[in-house]
């Protein structure tokens, strides 16, 4: 099966004298490298200039709340099932009376953990989620000194009300993909 038309037949012919001297090849190489001296540099001076993330960049997860500040997650476990790295684990609990302002659904995740060392950032969890609860964001997982600290619980994952995380770009992207 031919995949591309770039394939070339390998030939082992005798090298000509010019090829065996290597000097023409060396000069060709030198001219290539000297051209790069005048090219535009690809480097970004990081702390001052930051590279823009793609709108669909898959970084640290967030557990969303709805407009009234209630957690969307209903602990259905679809994300954990879909996760190929088995990084997600959760405990479900029933919503008590008087907790309606905390959880949107009648069942919620009492414990929700993602092991960031196991996670491969494939994004299958957000595709599996029926409740718009989990999204991957463009935040980068910070480095830690111990492995245990990479197991992120609800305290890290659930978004804070005063610091909401915008996932509208991703939602738009998924609506394009799914429709």
């Amino acid at each position, binding site marked *: 099966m031919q995949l591309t038309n770039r394939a070339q037949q390998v030939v082992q012919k005798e090298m000509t004298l010019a090829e065996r001297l290597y000097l023409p090849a060396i000069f060709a190489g030198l001219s290539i490298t000297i051209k790069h001296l005048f090219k535009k540099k690809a*480097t970004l001076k990081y702390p001052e200039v930051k590279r823009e993330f793609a709108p669909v960049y898959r970084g640290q997860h967030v557990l969303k709340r709805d407009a009234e500040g209630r957690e969307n997650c209903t602990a259905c476990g679809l994300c954990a099932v879909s996760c190929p790295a088995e990084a997600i684990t959760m405990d479900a609990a029933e919503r008590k009376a008087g907790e309606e302002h905390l959880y949107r659904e009648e069942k919620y995740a009492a414990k929700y953990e993602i092991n960031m060392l196991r996670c491969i950032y494939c994004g299958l969890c957000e595709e599996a989620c029926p409740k718009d609860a989990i999204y991957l964001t463009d935040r980068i997982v910070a480095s830690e000194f111990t492995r245990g600290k990479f197991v992120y619980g609800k305290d890290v994952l659930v978004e804070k009300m005063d610091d909401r995380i915008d996932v509208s770009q991703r939602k738009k992207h998924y609506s394009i993909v799914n429709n």
Partner: protein
Amino acid sequence: MTLIIFKTLLILIIFLISLGIAAYSTYGERKIAAFLQDRIGPDRAGPFGILQPIADGVKMFLKEEIIPNVSNKWLFILGPCIFMVTALMTSAVIPWGLPLEISGVKYNLQVADINIGILYVLGVVSLGVYGIMIGGWASNNKFALLGAIRASSQMISYELAMGMSVIAILLMNDGSLSLNSMVENQGTGKLYGFINISGMNWNVFYQPVAFLIFLICAFAECNRTPFDLAESESELIGGFHTEYSSMKLGLYLFAEYINMFISAAVISCLFFGGYNFPGISYLQEILPANIVSLISVAVLFGKIIFFIFFFMWIRWTIPRFRYDQLMRLGWQWLMPLSIINMLITGAVLIWIRN
């Protein structure tokens, strides 16, 4: 007495310039490497990163000094010292410019005009092997020993071709080995006997093959890519300086750049007319002698810097040789080629003179 003071000053200045150029070669290497790879390179220390060598030096000095327990301590310390000293010693016979005239007395801008100048350079370079060998052996590490053996056999092999290619130049120079007379001869006379540009009678126009051989051998002598088999990070960790740390490692790396500076200077003196430049006699007529002398020094340094750039340019273009290829090139190509070149030069010279 004033001569002694002048020579002492000259030695001091050359010493400082060698160290300064070596320091800025490290910066230049990183910068050029970056530019050739579409990067920016070090640019944080000072404007455009020009204070980077100072930062590197301070880092080297403050690093922990580790001497392996199983090493031979005296030889371990002696290795980098020898390498550095031999690297610095070579600059003594290089004529840096036209003589300066201070209050009626002429001072040669050359530390020692000995009649065996170029042989002195070859001799001192051949001693540089000891620094590498002693360092590599004293580390008591097989990678270091392998690197040292590779480096020294490579340097011995290429010294022969280097010396042979120089002989062609010596023949053209009436058998004088003094670098000063070589440079002076390149500043007088007409190119090919009829092109009359003063100070342009360079040896490279007569001896391109010898120049090529000398250049390749200079790369091998300095352990630079494509002949950096002594270090070859990907095979030998770091070669002969695997076990070195702190400023002793710094000395090795530094001396390598000084070697590069000196070999650039020798190449420009032997083949590119040293301090001579086109139109030198015209300038001598219209400007005072001392100013022309300073211009000639600047011209020599321009040539040296170009060749240092060329060394780096080659480094970031050509991959490393395999060891058998290296030896085959040295013994089966460069050696016979330089001998044939020498014989042809001699024959042509005899034909011209009769």
